[in-house]
């Protein structure tokens, strides 16, 4: 079998005692691109963070596996080592650590001691990827995300994605704050990753991104659950008609997680 498989089964997640996710089921395989859409505050980022192991989120029920291995038993860095990657909606700023030192540490963290990437090879790869993403070269020597504009942060997340080459990536609103040219560039980067060894979960509010990155499957999240799944045509209809028809279909009045179904 080519590629990895991420399985999310009946996932329930709480923050500070309040239940946010209420039973999410989702399987992503290598070669597949999934899109998750849904109104604000319905649990999309919570799903992404909980799978990656954010310390604030408490898993109250359910399981997550990557290639059969129990993800919930792993530390955050072990999840990354197992092949997971999360492009964050709001990436942290870390002062005093240069972007390139950080990237090199991340790459070497995946390698055995004594088998670290050579500086030459690293620089070449980084230069090439930054060119492709049309990033200013001096971003490499700037402190990690510090003072980066919204769009620059998003490009920087994709730079990391492309250099780390994970098996399964979750991209949380990678398109928010991007102008149309940047959107094209970022999409080009993500599309370049597409092969049978790479699976991706794209969280977005906009069909526009999906015009550039064609999803195989589209899911709609409401009230901390996936309430509808379909093909690319589902995203198209959401763009045209909004979410009301789904709410009517399912008898949902308030889609946010604070409401019980």
């Amino acid at each position: 079998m080519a590629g990895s498989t991420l399985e999310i089964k009946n996932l329930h997640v709480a923050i500070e005692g309040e239940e946010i996710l209420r039973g999410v089921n989702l399987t992503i395989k290598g070669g597949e691109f999934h899109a998750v859409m849904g109104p604000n505050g319905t649990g999309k980022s919570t799903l992404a963070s909980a799978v990656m192991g954010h310390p604030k989120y408490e898993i109250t029920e359910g399981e997550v596996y990557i290639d059969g291995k129990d993800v919930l038993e792993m530390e955050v860095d072990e999840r990354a080592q197992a092949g997971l990657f999360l492009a964050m909606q709001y990436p942290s700023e870390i002062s005093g650590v240069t972007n390139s030192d950080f990237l090199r540490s991340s790459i070497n963290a995946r390698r055995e001691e004594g088998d670290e990437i050579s500086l030459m090879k690293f620089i070449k790869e980084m230069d090439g990827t930054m060119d492709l993403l049309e990033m200013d070269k001096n971003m490499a020597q700037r402190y990690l995300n510090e003072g980066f504009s919204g769009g620059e942060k998003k490009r920087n997340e994709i730079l990391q994605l492309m250099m780390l080459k994970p098996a399964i990536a979750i991209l949380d609103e990678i398109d928010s704050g991007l102008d149309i040219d940047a959107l094209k560039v970022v999409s080009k980067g993500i599309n370049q990753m597409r092969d049978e060894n790479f699976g991706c979960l794209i969280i977005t509010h906009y069909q526009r991104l999906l015009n550039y990155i064609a999803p195989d499957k589209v899911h709609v999240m409401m009230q901390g659950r996936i309430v509808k799944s379909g093909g690319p045509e589902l995203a198209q209809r959401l763009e045209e008609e909004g979410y009301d028809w789904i709410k009517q279909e399912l008898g949902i009045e308030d889609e946010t997680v604070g409401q019980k179904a």
Partner: protein
Amino acid sequence: MTVEISLGYDKEYVTKFSEGLNEPEWMKTLRLDALQQAERLPMPKPDKTKIDRWNFTKFTHDLRGEELSSLADLPNQIKDFVDQNKEEQNLFIQRDQRVAFASLSQSLKDKGVIFTDMNTAMREHSDLVEKYYMKDGIQVDEHRLTALHAALMNGGVFVYVPENVQVEEPLQAIFWQEDPEAALFNHVIVVADKNSSVTYVENYLSQNNEEEEAVTNILTEVFAHDNAKVSFGAVDNLGAGTTTYVNRRGVADRDAKIEWALGQMNDGYTISENYTYLMGENSLGDAKTVSVGRGSQKQNFTARIVHYGKASEGYILQHGVMKEKATAIFNGIGKIEHGASKSNAEQESRVLMLSKDARGDANPILLIDEDDVTAGHAASVGRVDPMQLFYLMSRGITQKEAERLVIHGFLAPVVKQLPIKAVKEQLTQVIERKVN
């Protein structure tokens, strides 16, 4: 306390000690006066740190280490601090109070530069040393520890740069405490005469563990005369069993500059005071310090710049990281005296705590007795942001490595600005060791 001081270290002992070293008469007198004062003076009172149970007064005083036949014989931990590839070394190594290695380039000797151990300096340049020794810098009677130091001083160096001489290569002194229980009362004097400049770098090193108790009492006096410049770098790295009192003091005359770059990396209880007196018009004092605390270490750091001269400038920048159960107080004090108009005092203190048991406190203080001045301060004390660690770890970096990156990042803005390359490199190494 008085009882402990007199334990063996009485008038007779001090007299013998001084005579044994062939010291000039003035020095013997100074020691004996100081001994008397030590018995009645109070201990220093560092702001917010209680030191009454710290051991400053129980120690073994008279110990002599062995000479080194070659730098290659240094243990690795010390070798890291020496650049062995240099053709001409301006290097001084003191091993348990004895001169183990000393070398100064011929060209500097020819220019009249003095860089020698305190005892030799006292014998060969008695008047010069007397002029500076505990007179306008640190006073004998400030408190019990200054007096005790004056009575029992047992090591150190004297640096003198004559008028108009620019010393391009740094002078380096290593004070290596090899005997885990030897007490060090080290005295350093650096004098830059008019229109001269010098960079001096020092290291205090020992490897004693917590059970091997030792006492270190260090006084340093730096004088920059008119239009002189002194860059003073230090990386302190004394072991966990050593209780340290270190006071580094600078006096800057007209148009003079004193720049301090201090890596405060001891592993034991430490009081570190760094005062600069800006006496002359247009003088400048700049103190940059980096500290890492670990274990159950308690430390108190004070950087104080006092402005007497008009249009004088004082800058203090302190960054500290506290790990495990370490505690540290950072005091940054800018004092502008009446008459020091057009002066500027700036201070910034930042503390990062890595664990819930670590404690840090930053107190920037401005004391201003003059209207026509500018001043500013900033301080922050915070814990490492869990979101930052999550972000770094989500890329596969272990928690330990993530913390290491955050610490380096926190200290980098200061390390980057240190004016002396050797100190920057040494410090990066020591930080690495303390963080892992």
